[in-house]
C-alpha cells in the first residue's frame, strides 16, 4: 500500500475516478475453452486485467516424490508475463509469484475432490497477460472456472474479490490507481453457496469498523461475480 493519502480519489458525490460507487465491481468478461490443447481453460478480463488459465489433468504425478497415496496434488503456477505491467517484469524465479501460487493452490485444494484421483496431479497454469490490480483474485477466480471447464469435480466454485481503503473511504475492487495510493487491501476467496472462506489476506491499516465494511463489500461482490461465472460455464459467457 502506497499510503499517499493526499491524492484525492473520491469526488464530492462519493464517486470514484472511474465513476464507480464505493461498492461497485469493475466490468468482467469470462470465456472458456481459450487454450485448445488444455483439458480446461478460461480467459477472464476484469477491468483491464487479462488472465488466461489452463488446466491439465488429472495426469500422472512425477517425479514420484510429489505423489500422494490418497489424493491428487494441485500444481499451480501463477506468473505475470513480462509485458503485463508498465515496467517490464524480468522472467524467472520470484518470491511473490511463488507465494501467490501457494495460496491459490491452498484455496483450490479446499474445494477440489482430490481424493477421487489418488497419486495423480492436476496442473493449473495462470498467466497474467495484462495486470491492473487484484491479479491474484482474478487468477484464483478464473482458475476455478477453468477447473469446472475441465470437468474436475468440486464442492463449489471459488470467487475472489479484494476491497480496500482510499482517502479513508472503504471501497470494493480497487483499480490500479486506487491500489497504488490506497491504504489497505483485503482480498478474500469465498464459496458462494455457503459464504465460507478458503482464501484470506490483508495488508495495510483498517479500523475494526472499516474492516467490517470491506468484508461485507467482498461478500456482496462475490455473489455478483458468481453469476457471471455460472453463465460463462453454461456457454453464455462468450
Amino acid at each position: 500500500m502506497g499510503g499517499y493519502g493526499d491524492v484525492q480519489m473520491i469526488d464530492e458525490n462519493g464517486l470514484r475516478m472511474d465513476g464507480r460507487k464505493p461498492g461497485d465491481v469493475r466490468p468482467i468478461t469470462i470465456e472458456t475453452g481459450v487454450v485448445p490443447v488444455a483439458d480446461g481453460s478460461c480467459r477472464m478480463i476484469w477491468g483491464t486485467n487479462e488472465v488466461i488459465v489452463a488446466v491439465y489433468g488429472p495426469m500422472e504425478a512425477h517425479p514420484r516424490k510429489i505423489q500422494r497415496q490418497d489424493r491428487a496434488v494441485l500444481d499451480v503456477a501463477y506468473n505475470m508475463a513480462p509485458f503485463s505491467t508498465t515496467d517490464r517484469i524480468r522472467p524467472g524465479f520470484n518470491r511473490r509469484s511463488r507465494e501467490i501460487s501457494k495460496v491459490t493452490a491452498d484455496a483450490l485444494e479446499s474445494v477440489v475432490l482430490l481424493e477421487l484421483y489418488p497419486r495423480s496431479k492436476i496442473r493449473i497454469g495462470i498467466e497474467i497477460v495484462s495486470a491492473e490490480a487484484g491479479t491474484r483474485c482474478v487468477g484464483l477466480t478464473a482458475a476455478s472456472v477453468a477447473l469446472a471447464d475441465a470437468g474436475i469435480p468440486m464442492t463449489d466454485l471459488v470467487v475472489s474479490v479484494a476491497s480496500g481503503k482510499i482517502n479513508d473511504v472503504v471501497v470494493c475492487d480497487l483499480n490500479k490507481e486506487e491500489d497504488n495510493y490506497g491504504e489497505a487491501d483485503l482480498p478474500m476467496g469465498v464459496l458462494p453457496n455457503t459464504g465460507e472462506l478458503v482464501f484470506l489476506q490483508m495488508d495495510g491499516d483498517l479500523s475494526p469498523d472499516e474492516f467490517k465494511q470491506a468484508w461485507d463489500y467482498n461478500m456482496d461482490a462475490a455473489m455478483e461475480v458468481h453469476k457471471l461465472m455460472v453463465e460463462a460455464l453454461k456457454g453464455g459467457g462468450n
Partner: protein
Amino acid sequence: MSVPLVPKLLRAHLADLALNDSRLDDRGQWDARDTKLETGILARAEGSAKVTMGDTIVLAGVKFQIMTPYPDRPNQGGLMCSCEVRPIAGRHWEAGPPSPQSIELGRVVDRGIRESGCIDVDELCIIPGEKAWQVILDLHAISDDGNLFDAFALAGIAALRDATIPAERFEIGEDTPLKVSKTPIMCSYHKVGGRFVYDASYREELGGDERIHITLGDDDHVHSLQKGLKGIFTAEEFDEIMEHAKARCAELREIVNG
C-alpha cells in the same frame, strides 16, 4: 521443509482431544505457552531480541546499511525483513533453497511489520536522493516446536525497538535510537481436530489443517491477515479468532512496550 506423510493416527488423536476440549499438552483452546522476551542479546547486532515460546526459540537481529534512495522516493530509506529457518531448528528443516513454506513465513511476518507503518522511512533519509539508512531485520530460528510465525513477529518488533542507528561507525553523526512508533503484534491460529486453537505446537501443526495469521496494531487496527494451507472456515470462526486476537495482542504489546 520436507513433506511428512500425514500422520493419520496423530490426526485422530488430536480430534479426540478436541472433543474433550483438551490439547496434547493439556492447554485450553486459547491458551498460550509460556512466553519470554529478552532484548539486547546479540553482540554484533545493532538491535536484537530472543523469544522463547515453550520449546520454540527464535532470534532477531537488526543491522543497518547505507542505501541510495529509489529515484521515485528520494526522501526515503528502507526496511527489509528476511527470514531463515536452517537445519539447526528442527529435524524437519533441511538445508537448501528456500521452500514455499519458508517464503510464506518470511513474507507474512514482513508484511505485518511493514504494513503497520511502525518505521517512518522518511526519517531514515540522510541526504535526499543520495544516502539513506536501510534497516535490515533478520529473523533466525533456533528451535522450532511450532508457531514460528508469532515468535518471529514478536522478536522482530522487539529487536527494532531495541535498535540504535550506528551513525558513528559510518561517520555520519552520533548514534541515535531507531524510532519505532507502533507495536504490531501477530497472533496465529491453527485448525486442529476440527477447531481453531491459539499458539499451536509443532505436532499440532503437523496434524492440523489451515491456519490464520492476524497482525493487529494500536487500537485493534488490522495490519495484515493471511490464511495458509488447505481448509475452509466460516465467518463465525473468524470472528471468534479476531476477538481473541484483540485481547492477546494487547497483552503481548505490553510485554514489548514494557
